[in-house]
């Protein structure tokens, strides 16, 4: 007998109802207080901000993710290991609160794909507008809204994708059964849902016009939608901080026996470096957005020069997070590249320690370069040259990665299944992104490039190469592990061979029109620039990328249900999740503890073992801790 799951048992449904209730309560509360104070009842700014906050709280309460914490506050007992509602099966399980890091990872991943597609759709809309000079169908105000949403929703999507990879993989790769704080993990995922709803809700609240950077004074006088934009980013920040905290604790405390830091799979190094950035920098964007919110709500003047504020201050606060955030997006992706290359090259990762430490090198230098976004902003001119030096230093640890990757595949025995194709594509694209960096990092040339489409091309190359291609590689690579079924190789290859050239056309086109005078974030451009043809190519390339992703989604959905069943170590990987676990992985991962007895990437070293269950160790009674009796002669004098 199959028990039917009631609609209201599904967490997401309850959460959405909670959000609606919260919004209504928030609106009522503000209007009620204003009525009591004798003020005009309707103040949209205050009412909608409070509604957004209450809506988010309502969602989190009703979705059930704070259940155990509330019980603790009331002094009630809860089980040591939190379990999700056992009645939930199949899809309902994924739409409700779960504490299993793998389910949370999948929740992150699917949400990431949905959110990224939505952001991509925004891009397709305004790329269509830019297909020719003049206004085709999108008025400048709507253009600004759609363009801003493309940016910020994509950033949310990328953070979700990073969360997906680190949540699903880190515990598996270090031989742990779950994350250090499963409840916090669930909270960090679920808060993204109301946050994304707030961001998309801005569409119906007068839109946005500031770009994702939200510079005041423009943002302090832009339409009402700006408030929910600021609020949405603020809540996504919670997710980053809690998620990062969890990764740091998990990596520090839950590694399997024998897994020293230098024996961790290199992806774990990048996840840890990413987490350190997110844990320490996210506060700054939260703070700067909160200050703008307060400017608008209470008339405070942090950045409004007319009232004694300073608009440059915002830019410092903002970029102090938003530059390291770039490495939050890309380091995880670079970790996937380093993790997958040895498997498909059948060769150890070249210079493991250098690759591992270069991630921390990038993360640390990344904190010292933020003002290179501000060379033309009007900050103190003497700051520009030191920030140019620090910026270009990032090239050094990044270069170590590129050279080590090439040395890894050199004289390897390469095979080219879809994940490997995406990894190789990622390297070439990230290379383009990296090499287009120094022209913007050097002050003199940046005077021309700042705020042009060159920058747009540069960071799209960085994001596609550092995040999107590796993310897709990871999905294809771990797809059999996650679902127990194989994706369709032909569709995977079609996806790749459409997306890679389309990407190059798009990014190189953006760089070219930028050099020629195309500014960022403009709804229309001067035909005198003679860039129509390039613009047309960029738009067509964007369509092709969109189509290739639709093919990928069809592949994922079809293969998850109907793909060939695979349970073995399809890639002949040495990693613990492939060598020691069945596919799909049961709850609580490793039924018996494992130990690390070798190096992670000893491909080509016959008989080398990386991990094994502790019980499989050939220990005999009496051999530990002392020496075997027949061999123990020496050490005593």
């Amino acid at each position, binding site marked *: 007998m199959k028990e039917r799951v009631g609609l209201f048992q599904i967490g997401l449904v309850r959460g959405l109802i909670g959000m609606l209730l919260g919004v209504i309560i928030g609106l009522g509360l503000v209007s009620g207080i204003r009525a009591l104070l004798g003020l005009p009842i309707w103040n949209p700014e205050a009412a909608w901000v409070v509604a957004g906050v209450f809506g988010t709280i309502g969602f989190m309460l009703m979705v059930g993710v704070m259940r155990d914490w509330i019980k603790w506050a009331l002094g009630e007992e809860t089980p040591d290991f939190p379990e999700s509602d056992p009645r939930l099966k199949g899809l309902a399980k994924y739409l409700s609160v779960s504490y299993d890091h793998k389910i949370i990872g999948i929740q992150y991943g699917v949400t990431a794909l949905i959110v990224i597609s939505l952001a991509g759709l925004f891009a397709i809309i305004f790329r269509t507008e830019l297909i020719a000079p003049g206004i085709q169908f999108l008025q400048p105000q709507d253009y600004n809204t759609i363009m801003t949403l493309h940016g910020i929703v994509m950033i949310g999507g990328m953070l979700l994708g990073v969360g997906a990879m680190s949540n699903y993989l880190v515990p598996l790769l270090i031989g742990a059964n779950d994350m250090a704080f499963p409840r916090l993990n669930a909270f960090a995922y679920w808060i993204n849902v109301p946050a994304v709803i707030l961001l998309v809700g801005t569409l119906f609240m007068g839109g946005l016009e500031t770009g994702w950077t939200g510079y005041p004074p423009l943002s302090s006088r832009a339409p009402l939608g700006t408030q929910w934009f600021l609020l949405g980013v603020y809540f996504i920040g919670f997710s980053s901080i809690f998620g990062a905290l969890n990764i740091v604790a998990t990596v520090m405390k839950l590694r399997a026996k024998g897994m020293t830091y230098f024996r961790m799979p290199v992806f774990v190094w990048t996840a840890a470096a990413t987490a350190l950035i997110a844990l320490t920098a996210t506060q700054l964007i939260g703070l700067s957005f909160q200050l703008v919110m307060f400017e608008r709500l209470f008339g405070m003047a942090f950045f409004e020069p007319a009232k004694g504020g300073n608009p440059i201050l915002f830019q410092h606060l903002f970029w102090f997070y938003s530059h390291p955030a770039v490495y939050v997006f890309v380091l995880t992706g670079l970790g996937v590249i380093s993790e997958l290359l040895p498997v498909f090259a059948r060769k150890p990762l070249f210079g493991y*320690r250098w690759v591992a430490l270069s991630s921390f090198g990038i993360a640390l230098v990344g904190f010292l370069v933020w003002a290179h976004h501000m060379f033309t902003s009007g900050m103190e001119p003497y700051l520009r040259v030191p920030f140019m030096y620090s910026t270009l230093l990032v090239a050094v640890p990044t270069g170590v990665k590129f050279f080590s990757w090439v040395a890894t595949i050199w004289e390897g025995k390469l095979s080219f299944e879809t994940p490997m194709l995406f990894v190789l594509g990622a390297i070439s694209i990230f290379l383009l992104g990296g090499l287009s960096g120094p022209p913007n990092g050097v002050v003199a040339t940046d005077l021309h490039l700042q705020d042009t489409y060159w920058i747009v091309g540069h960071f799209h190359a960085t994001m596609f190469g550092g995040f999107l291609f590796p993310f897709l590689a990871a999905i294809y690579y771990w797809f059999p592990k996650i679902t127990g079924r194989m994706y369709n190789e032909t569709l995977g290859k079609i996806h790749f061979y459409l997306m890679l050239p389309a990407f190059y056309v798009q990014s190189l086109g953006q760089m070219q029109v930028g050099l020629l005078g195309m500014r960022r974030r403009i709804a229309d451009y001067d035909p005198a620039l003679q860039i129509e043809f390039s613009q047309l190519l960029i738009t067509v390339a964007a369509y092709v990328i969109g189509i290739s992703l639709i093919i990928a989604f069809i592949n994922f959905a079809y293969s998850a249900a109907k793909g060939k069943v695979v349970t073995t170590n399809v890639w002949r990987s040495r990693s613990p999740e492939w060598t020691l676990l069945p596919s799909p992985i049961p709850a609580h991962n490793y039924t018996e503890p494992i130990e690390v007895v070798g190096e992670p990437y000893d491909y080509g070293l016959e008989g080398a073992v990386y991990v094994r269950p502790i019980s499989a160790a050939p220990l005999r009674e009496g051999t530990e801790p002392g020496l075997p009796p027949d*061999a123990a002669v020496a050490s005593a004098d």
Partner: protein
Amino acid sequence: MFRNFNRSTVRVLIASNHALFRHGLMSLFKKKMGVKVEIVGEVTDFESANQILETQAVDLVIVDYDDDQLNREDFLTRFVGGGGQKRIILVSLSNPESAMLYDRRELPLAQFEAWFEGWQAAGDDSAATMAGAVRSKGKNQTRSNRMKHFVVAGFLVFVLTGLLILGAGQVRLLPIAASAQAQPIDQLFRLMFFAIAFLFSLIVVFMLYSIVVFRRRKGDESDARHVEGNTRLEVTWTTIPLIIVLGLSFLGARSLADVERADPKALEVNVIGMQWTWRFEYPRYGIVSNELVLPVNKQAILYLSSQDVIHSFWVPEFRVKQDLLPGGEEFVRTLRITPTEIGSYKVRCAELCGIRHAYMESPVVVVSQADFDVWVAQQTGEPTDPVERGRKWANQYGCLSCHSLDGTKLVGPTWLGLFGSQVKLADGRTVTADEAYIIESIRNPGAAIVEGYPNIMPANVGQDLSDERIQDIIAFLKTLR
């Protein structure tokens, strides 16, 4: 060689059937080694050696190679397959020089096998000499092969670099350079494009070469050569990029100094940005203009400021860019430009500033000194006709960036047929657009908002206009029927 071990104590396993071998070596170790040595075991048979290897963290294994009872192949296979950083010494007492070191961190399995076979085949000959010969023979073979790959790929790097540079030459990449500041910047751009072409080729060629040459053959399930890394290479490719980026930063700083070189006699122009237009004031001549007119080959210093949000001054042909900040005196920023080419350009706002950001463009005209003088003379003499004056003020003060003259709907209501018409306001009133209405709308733009338009006209527009000039504008409005 023991200096390289990570631990302070070196844990040693000695495998030999001869007690003399074991004890001799042991006492030798105790005497001669600077590091602390702990002998974790002496073994005479394969089984017990294995047990120790499994259970103890052994750093160094010494094997008596002359001992026939030791199953060397098994022992070594087992050893090679283990984890951790171990080293092994094979010692043969039948020849005084035949101590061989096998370090599993440095010597790949394939090479080891070649070497091992060679040693076995050598028989009675001097093991060391023979082993050395085989070792270098095996190495030479693979090394020459490896060098071949390396040389071919290296050659292709230069081919691709050349092709990329040729290709980039066929594409339009930069607008003409029309200022003295553009020269050092474009020089740096050229240098960077070369460097990008080379570095892109360097990585991509080695990748593509690997993809083509080192692909897995069908049915080949074996792994590749076990190479873990090479510290010397890593140091090289850390150091060289470091030197390159420091050099590039240095060049960048030098170019920046060239770009900012100041001429004390520069022509001063105040550039005021507002949503969504530009105003240019020449304090020396008392001119206010909506186009930036500059004499060629004379440095102009622009004092940039904004009346509302952040804007950015950029003429692509001049290459340099600077944001305009609101906030008055304290936030005025400067930009120096020395135009070198006579012609018409456009200043384009480069910082998102709201709805009509894309259209915040104004003409920039570079003229000869003689033409500049003529222009100054024209501008300083005021037209006698109030209508012409009104047209001039409407242009200069940026009115026309939001109000059209031909009925087009921009951000503000059109001026065509405005004067004397009935205007429906957002608060429901209908008023006649008479003189008083026009004056109020300029002086206090928020007071009467036309239905269907946002309340975004900056209040300070009216503060800069004198009563006389507003009268001129009204005279101009009356002609727009």
